[in-house]
């Protein structure tokens, strides 16, 4: 950051008052008056429940946890934090895998789990309006069986739509259907100063900048969404699913490329390597061969005639591509089992190793074989197991670096290996994260994708929404930065005093 901006930042800090830190007791009292004593937590044991999200290796104890029940209460909480100069973090179901909802030590955590009403189901116009704490699956349940909500993260039974909006969540079906950002048309947002704004609406072309698209995936750093309007779509006429077993991931990868180059847009194409197959088999007992080098799940959906023709093509491509077994789901129960086994892979990894790092890198699909080989080499070099379970259609890998936290030096070795895997993916023209978000976990990798000017430009957006840097500070950007308005003399910023941000 240049000196001018740092100086400007000082003025903002000065306007807010001395950097004596946050009076958390006073803030808690105010939050209590908004949300009630039962929903304002300050006891150490209660706070500990919220110290991590789905990524347990990152933890921080918030100063206060508040559970508002309405959008208006959320607005009140954010406004109180802003007045107190207290950093705040919004949290949905806490199932995120990037540490994006990890609290700021001593700051406020706004848990949205009580905002779980579906406010409006307008099937005629294919829109659902809901509160942020509604689970992803609840939306599809509310509009089924005629319609469904396509983005389907593996955690869809628990994860919240508010969290999906923050992370721009994907899922197994996004190669064909797209991500959260392709389905959100409107947002009610509490800005970090406590002001409430309506962004977008039901329509697809609203006047003004596309701040809905800009907000989705901003990881809680631009404000808190309190009402979300999503588009739902008609359920496809038919769905056909198969799982094929190969000797190696490269063989299976060749089939994926063949399917794509044939112009077949699969609803989903998912791959598991041997380690993942074994772990998942232990969890669901689907009867997958334990010696298979790769399992490839292909799902086609659409009109009956089109789907049938294309599906036969895919089966023969698998066979020609070296599959020694192709299992076609004969009914909905068999299809559900294939998906359950695929989605169980993460959680089942505990059967392979006590701990693991989950990565979320993306590569251009054509580089898959080469990058997977590189990951194998690295794993051997570091003498650690790396399981792979990934969205093959869009090149989104989920390498799981397995380790034992009890063995001295192994966590550090695992972390280093995980970093090298990310680097290999970025070097191949990919991304550090496809759907989990940057959070705290991957912010150190941001400079491998983005230069100083790129990051400084990101910061401009953040400053437009949150000039005081209170919304989920310490996430996304590799180095905390402050915003400024007007040049002035240096005064310590409250976040600096709290050790959250530093001037560069």
């Amino acid at each position, binding site marked *: 950051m240049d000196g001018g901006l740092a100086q400007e930042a000082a003025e903002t800090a000065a306007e807010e008052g001395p950097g004596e830190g946050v009076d958390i007791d006073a803030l808690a009292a105010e939050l209590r008056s908004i949300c009630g004593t039962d929903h304002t937590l300050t006891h150490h044991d209660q706070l500990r429940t919220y110290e991590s999200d789905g990524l347990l290796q990152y933890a921080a104890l918030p100063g206060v946890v508040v559970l508002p029940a309405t959008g208006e209460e959320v607005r009140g909480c954010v406004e109180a934090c802003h007045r107190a100069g207290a950093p705040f973090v919004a949290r949905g179901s806490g199932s995120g895998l990037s540490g994006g909802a990890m609290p700021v030590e001593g700051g406020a955590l706004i848990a949205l789990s009580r905002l779980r009403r579906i406010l409006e189901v*307008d099937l005629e116009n294919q829109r659902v309006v809901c509160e942020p704490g509604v689970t992803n699956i609840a939306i599809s349940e509310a509009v089924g069986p005629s319609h469904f909500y396509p983005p389907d993260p593996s955690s869809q039974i628990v994860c919240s739509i508010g969290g999906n909006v923050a992370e721009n969540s994907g899922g197994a079906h996004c190669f064909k259907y797209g991500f959260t950002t392709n389905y959100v048309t409107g947002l009610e947002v509490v800005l970090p100063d406590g002001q409430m704004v309506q962004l977008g609406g039901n329509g697809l*072309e609203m006047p003004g900048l596309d701040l809905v698209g800009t907000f989705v995936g901003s990881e809680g750093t631009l404000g808190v969404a309190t009402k979300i309007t999503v588009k739902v779509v008609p359920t496809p006429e038919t769905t056909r699913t198969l799982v094929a077993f190969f000797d190696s991931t490269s063989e299976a990868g060749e089939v994926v490329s063949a399917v794509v180059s044939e112009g077949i847009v699969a609803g989903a194409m998912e791959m598991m390597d041997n380690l993942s197959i074994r772990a998942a088999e232990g969890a669901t007992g689907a009867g997958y061969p334990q010696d298979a080098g790769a399992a490839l799940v292909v799902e086609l959906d659409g009109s009956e005639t089109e789907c049938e023709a294309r599906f036969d093509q895919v089966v023969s491509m698998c066979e020609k591509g070296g599959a020694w077994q192709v299992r076609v789901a004969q009914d909905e129960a068999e299809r559900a089992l294939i998906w359950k086994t695929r989605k169980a892979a993460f959680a089942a990894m505990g059967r392979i190793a006590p701990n693991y790092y989950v990565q979320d890198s993306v590569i251009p699909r054509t580089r898959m074989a080469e990058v997977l080989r590189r990951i194998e080499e690295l794993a051997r070099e570091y003498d650690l197991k790396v399981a792979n379970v990934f969205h093959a259609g869009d090149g989104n890998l989920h390498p799981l670096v397995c380790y034992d936290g009890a063995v001295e030096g192994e966590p550090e070795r695992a972390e280093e290996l995980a970093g090298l895997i990310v680097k290999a993916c970025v070097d191949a023209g990919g991304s550090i994260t496809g759907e989990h978000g940057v959070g705290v976990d991957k912010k150190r990798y941001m400079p491998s994708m983005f230069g100083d000017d790129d990051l400084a430009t990101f910061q401009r957006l953040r400053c437009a929404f949150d000039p005081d840097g209170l919304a989920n500070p310490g996430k996304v950007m590799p180095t905390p930065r402050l915003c400024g308005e007007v040049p002035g003399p240096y005064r310590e910023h409250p976040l600096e005093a709290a050790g959250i941000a530093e001037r560069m």
Partner: protein
Amino acid sequence: MSRQSAVGSRQGLVEQLRSAGHDGHPVRFSGAGTKLAWGSSVGGEEILRIEAREIHEHNAGDLTAVVDAGLPLRELQETLAEEGQILALDPPLGEEARATVGGIVATSDSGPLRHRYGAARDLVVGMTVALSDGTVAKSGGKVIKNVAGYDLSKLFTGSYGTVGAILQLSLRLHPLSPENATAAGRSSDPTALAAAALELSHARIELQSLDVRWEGGTGLVLARFGGTKASAPADDAAETMKAHGLEIEVSADDAEWWGDQREAQRSASGVVVRVSGVQSQLATVLTLTRDLGARVVGRAGLGLSWITLPGSGDPVATVGDLRRELAPSPCVVLDAPESLRGSLDVWGPRDRGAEALDQRVRERFDPAGVCAPGLMRVR
């Protein structure tokens, strides 16, 4: 008339923009200039015509491409078609089909393929932009799935250049459909047309495009399918239309129908109002169009319609009437003759909080306030 300068190179544009920012003189960005009349220009800006038009990458196996903003879309499509691929954006291309990828993205223009593939915002996966202080920044990447950093391409898509200039775009591509077939249904009853279109929009079928049209006292529903067996679902769709009393026709030779749909989104001499509503307003839109003696084309499943007002009557009053009848759906004026532009409220009413937030964003990205100032401002 504004001064125009052609800027051949990317570096040239960055320099010109930087000096405009430094001197505080307002600029607008233009590709082929086919949509320069859109928005609420305050006049007097220098128009920087972006001419860089290279295809930097076409990664057929990854279904991605990286192109300069000044590349004409038609040129890109010709190159992609050689590999059986398409950028699934098919807006009207304007005079001599010159419209550029950058201009289409900056105005978020779209065509019938939007039904199946979404709009520019859904197809741009990365962007390099220039700001008025000379900063060149990229966001996104070259892979179709990527959530690293803020999605600045959403901010610039549809921004009319009011945040900065788009230099280069990474695009998501799709396979060209091996076959197409369209079911067409005709009727002079707006209610029957709307009912047929809405039933199709909710049917468990995979439509590529679903359009309606009304012109000269009669209307049309068009349902297009792609794939290897496109005619089978088209026949089914025709049956649905028939059940609503429409006169049907199915054809695989359907390019002209769809070309006409695209063309009717523009008008060289009339006023075009784009309505962004919901599906259930379709019958109202068709009936209003009939009663006005106007023309409309619409994306029935998306709630988007382009109404071309009749030459007679008072367009300013008509736009106001449309806004009242269709509220809260935004009705934005796109094409309009020069003589009328001053008196038309182009953007219509808008949430004040969102408008203020837009301004805060622009102040950060363009502190000099030189990037198409006022072009998107509501009255």
